[in-house]
């Protein structure tokens, strides 16, 4: 059996996937996402070979290599059984030392559970077990790509941001942005820092990005797993915008994949939950030391 594979970015993969599902008109189909950092190092070909036995009995399937982290596998026919086989295969391919991955090694992609673009597409594109009403493909695409505006910047925002950026290094009272979805942790961290710093606390990626542009904060405490996406994506975007930004990832996970991604994005710190005052103030002290050092360098020049 030939397994069809596609190396693609997320957008192209999603569009192809929906088209595929629409074309098949299949009553039974399945879709899983595989979190690649959990698996041992393998080429795409090696991975396809390893997954092949689990896909023997399905009528049609497709594997999308979306990015370094994500693989989508979709198939038609006997979804439950295939999911179990794929799951067993993936768990046999785990990277040594993976104990608690930052995302499931393999999970059903649930159209209703996730707020991401794939779920929006599938929710409308299929008539699977959830019995969702079908939506024309063009409308779906419009709905999905409207959400792609998450990391855009209007001219007005850019103007405001540049003004705030100019003030950033001169602030006597530091501005801190907390991006954390859990009300309890957002409040805990805010209240501890409120006496000495200017605090903004928001629950998601989009609000985090908007607040960053609004205030150009000195420090960002950023959770990794957020309802509207990964904190890594926001960290990456902020660092692209302002390489001198100071970002501290705050998370329960200290898994290699999260640490690696944080490093790749050049974040400045990593705080594990449960956090304490000392660890938080160490981060702030580190930021201040760095700021003083670069001010000295500037004055020497």
């Amino acid at each position: 059996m030939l397994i069809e594979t596609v190396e693609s970015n997320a957008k192209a993969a999603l569009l192809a996937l929906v088209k595929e599902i629409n074309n098949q008109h299949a009553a039974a189909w399945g879709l899983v996402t595989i979190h690649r950092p959990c698996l041992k190092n393998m080429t795409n070909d090696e991975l396809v070979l390893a997954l092949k036995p689990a896909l023997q009995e399905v009528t049609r399937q497709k594997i999308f290599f979306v990015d370094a982290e994500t693989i989508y596998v979709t198939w038609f026919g006997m979804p439950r059984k295939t999911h179990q086989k794929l799951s067993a295969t993936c768990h046999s391919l785990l990277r040594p030392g993976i104990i608690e991955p930052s995302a499931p090694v393999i999970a059903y992609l649930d159209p209703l559970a996730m707020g991401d673009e794939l779920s929006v597409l599938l929710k409308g594109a299929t008539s699977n077990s959830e019995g969702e009403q079908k939506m024309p493909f063009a409308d779906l695409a419009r709905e999905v790509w409207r959400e792609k505006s998450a990391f855009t910047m209007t001219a007005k925002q850019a103007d405001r941001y540049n003004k705030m950026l100019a003030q950033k290094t001169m602030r006597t009272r530091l501005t801190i942005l907390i991006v954390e979805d859990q009300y309890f942790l957002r409040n805990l961290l805010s209240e501890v820092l409120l006496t000495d710093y200017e605090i903004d606390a928001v629950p998601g990626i989009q609000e985090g990005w908007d607040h960053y542009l609004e205030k150009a904060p000195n420090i960002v405490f950023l959770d990794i797993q957020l309802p509207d996406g990964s904190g890594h994506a926001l960290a990456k975007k902020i660092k692209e915008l302002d390489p001198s930004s100071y970002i501290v990832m705050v998370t329960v996970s200290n898994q290699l994949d999260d640490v690696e991604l944080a490093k790749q994005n050049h974040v400045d710190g990593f705080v594990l939950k449960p956090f304490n005052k000392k660890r938080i103030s160490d981060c702030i002290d580190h930021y201040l030391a760095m700021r003083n050092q670069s001010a000295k360098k500037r004055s020497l020049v």
Partner: protein
Amino acid sequence: MTRSVNLAVLHEMTDGDLSFDRRMFKAFLKSAYECLATLDKSWAKGMDMAWYQAAHAFKGICLNLGAERLGQLCKEAQEQCTAKAQKKKELLKAIRSELESVRQYLESL
């Protein structure tokens, strides 16, 4: 039997300030019941990813309050995200019961 909450963990942040503690107890319970509702919903609909994310978030808040047993149950729930519905149902029951103990303990302070 040990206490449901090891307050020393929260006091690392609040310095044992009772009114601060109380505000945080309320905030914790609000977050905890939201996570529980998401677990319930994702169990009912068989949504592995949503279950995993809710269990992960729940575990995070438990760690910072010092609700160690509850945190351990959430960790187990997270690990069992692809388990059968019956297993998840048992976990939900245990989580609900432990959360009730935590609530009673917090309200007694």
